[in-house]
């Protein structure tokens, strides 16, 4: 990856400036930012890491999901100023240009788990986080964890069916969930 050279705040910006240093996708970055700058806008417009997308800016849709210190978070609900000294990973930090896709990315391609692709980086980062967590724990993710993971982002194109398959492939679970003709009433607590 080429060196990330962040652009700075516009001169007219009235809020206080800060110098922050952190790592993004393994690279050290030092940047001057303004107090109110959202992490999403910093990543997208100052670092030009535009793979992280913005869908709602209220933490609901999940399109802006990234990893902060290895954990999935919504980057629209974080100020850039808050990540001083932290470690960030975005979709661009998974497979480098020319590298093979990661297992998670490949699973989405294999299962046609994306259409317009706009929500995709968020899903990929969420599934990647769960996969890494399960590898670190040395156990397969539970069905509840898988459900929380795929429920955590909105997709308007796919109807989710192929996203679930992609997630399951990436997580090493059986891909096809057989259609049970019985209801889950009484099994799933609310």
């Amino acid at each position, binding site marked *: 990856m080429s060196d990330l050279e962040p652009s700075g705040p516009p001169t007219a910006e009235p809020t206080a400036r800060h110098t922050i240093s952190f790592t993004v996708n393994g690279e050290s970055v030092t940047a001057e930012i303004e107090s109110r700058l959202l992490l999403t806008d910093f990543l997208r417009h100052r670092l030009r890491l535009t793979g992280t997308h913005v869908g709602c800016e209220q933490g609901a849709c999940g399109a802006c999901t990234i990893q902060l210190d290895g954990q999935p978070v919504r980057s629209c609900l974080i100020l850039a100023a808050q990540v001083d000294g932290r470690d960030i990973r975005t979709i661009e930090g998974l*497979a480098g240009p020319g590298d093979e896709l990661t297992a998670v990315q490949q699973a989405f391609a294999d299962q046609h788990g994306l259409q317009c692709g706009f929500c995709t980086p968020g899903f990929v980062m969420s599934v990647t986080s769960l996969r890494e967590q399960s590898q670190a724990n040395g156990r397969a993710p539970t069905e509840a964890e898988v459900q929380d993971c795929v*429920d955590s982002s909105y997709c308007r*194109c796919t109807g989710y069916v*192929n996203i679930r398959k992609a997630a399951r492939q990436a997580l090493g679970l059986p891909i096809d969930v057989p259609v049970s003709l019985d209801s889950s009433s009484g099994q799933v607590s609310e």
Partner: protein
Amino acid sequence: MSTEPNDWLIGQSVPRVEDDRLLRGAGRYTDDLHVPDAAEVAFLRSTEAHARITSIDISAAQAMPGVVAVYDGASVVDRIKPLLNAEELRVPPGIADLDPVNKLQPAPILATDEVNYVGQPVAMVVAETRYLAEDAIEVIDVTYELLPAVIDVEAAQAEDAALVLLGEDDNIGVHVRHGKGDTDAALASAAAVITETFSTQRYVCAPIETRGLVAQQDPFTGSLTIWSTTQTPHRVRDHVAESIGLPVDDVRVQSVDVGGGFGQKGILVVEELLVPFAAHDLGRPVRWIADRFENLTADAHAREQIHHITLGADADGTLVAVKDHIIVNLGARNMVGLVVPYNALCHLIGPYQVANADLEATGVLTNTTFTSPYRGAGRPEATFAMERAMDRLAAELGIEPSELRRRNLITSEQMPYETGLLDRRGVPQEYDSGDYPAMLDRAVEMIDVPAVRARQAAEPDRRIGVGFALYLEMTGLGPFEGARVEVMPSGRVRLYTGAPSQGQGHRTVFAQILADTMGVAFDDIDVLAGDTASIPYGVGTIASRALVTAGNATAQAGELVRERILDAAAGVLEANAADLTIEQGIISVTGTPSVELTLAELIRSVPKLAGGSGSDGLGETSYFQPPNYATASGAHAVTVEVDTATGRVEILDYVVVHEAGTIVNPVVADAQVVGGVGQGIGGIMSEHLRYDENGQPITSTFSDYLMPISEMVPEIRMDEIVCPSPTNPLGVKGLGEGGAVGPPAAIANAVEDALRPEGVSVRSGPLTPGRILDMLRSAAVSQ
């Protein structure tokens, strides 16, 4: 076609070429484009549903830090023509004979003296960043004098209703009535008549990428380049040029990676004229990306319809008449004319044969956000009414609902079938092909109706139900779409078309078609869709039309270029063109395998070919004009269980049998259907864009506007039948919208079937647990 059918890519699930970039975060959506020095826009929007503007003061905003320019209504009223979506508002001659009402109500670019809905643009700030633009918005001073706001669509039609738009005579924007036979007489003598009101609530396309655009003026020529999320780039080009007074040749619109559209990005809004205007006026690039609040409250809404429907049938269930009065809530203006109301009207009866019909559609204005087509564009709403009514009729007659449908279906032997009505173009409506009985039979078999009935009998304490929805969709809207195919200097082949992708996979699917028709390798084809500079005319990707129109244009252009290639190669190889073949981009002489020519070799020699045509390349442009719609269809069947304690509806099984002619890429096609089903489920189960009685939107964020999430969409079991369309050489039909048409009706039918012991009537969505409990309670009270 150049290769053997069993080698054809058409029909194969070729992996998408789009995916690698998108999965790496290397997509280039509109807001990803780095255009140096681009200023950003924020809009001040009306906070009132209906008011007179008595004053606007933008001076404080002009003085705010980082502000480049502030425009209000007065500053643009003489500089930008008001917006009319002219193509949608056009009334074709045959429809004009029905004497419809279709009022032209141009949208003011920025409000000057009156606002008509919350969210209407009142002023535009251009600033160094969106943050600074929003700061400046806050100090614009607007004073409003409130006017009566009309929110309810029925109240808006009252004699003494206040006017939604001052200066109009009434609140009717659209009206059309059309039918056949003698409906009243048929109903008077029918053995069974059911009358009911079914309605579809207002919801929003809400693609995850909101609408946006970046406009840049060329400092040398003054021409404008616009990168946009639009589904219809040529229309944007034409409208921008017209409204701000530039030659159309000096406006270029490129639809880049687009994060879903579903109809919302298929019509023009005033923001799409204002942003290019600002770039032109300021000589500086300007960017506007709607935020989610703008997307939900101020971009196009959809779906809100009421159907007062009556069905009449003989004792054996044979339909004799359908009568429906469709009320469409247009919002504050007639933005897209007859499109949705007439679509609803002419798709209402769908796959059934009925001799008598009296169908009336009224588009009513209210002080709410304007509306647009949304995936299905009137069909999900009409199907909800018709298919719910069919279930009521079945109950009335004591006939199994699937059997009642079976008895009334048009058969494959009757194809092509003239309905006796006029289609959207105003010519006699003719279904080109289909096999509705076969489709229904498969759906009945897959969902296993007898098994559901047996369970209902065996487990009387559970609330299990089954529901069907049959629909059809006249796809491949004209008038045309084009394809330009060119052999590039590298020997690779480029396809340009006016129909961009918002996720449908055009780069893959159109390349499959071109590979087959030209005899070139799939990997050697690049598809560039939605750039007005690369093909002069286009319509866009709306109305399940891209595959039919652009797909066939691609095949036509590919054939023409193939002929050009062979002619040119004949010259180079000193052979007879008839003796040449092209496979995987390599031209060879039949019977002389040692002689080969690649496209790269050929294209390099073409300009200097002795005795050549004088043309310096191998390229052709072709436009396909569909002679008729290609009518696709589907049958959805679903079983649900309703928990009467929680109100929760669980989908136990969901089956789709669809028919969309020749399938180019099965995986992509199935995913289009499933994606539509997901949206349909969202619509019937949770989505509802609501206003309070004062016209304030109360579901203005994703906390309150409930999008479907993964847990709400079950596995979908799919099957298909194939009836290639005779209306186009590829035999294809559109299927982008179909999946969204069935779920509201099928699920509502299943829920009512499940709750029959409770006496619940399902007349509208969304079927949230809270509303199910409300329905159960009111049914208990009335029993």
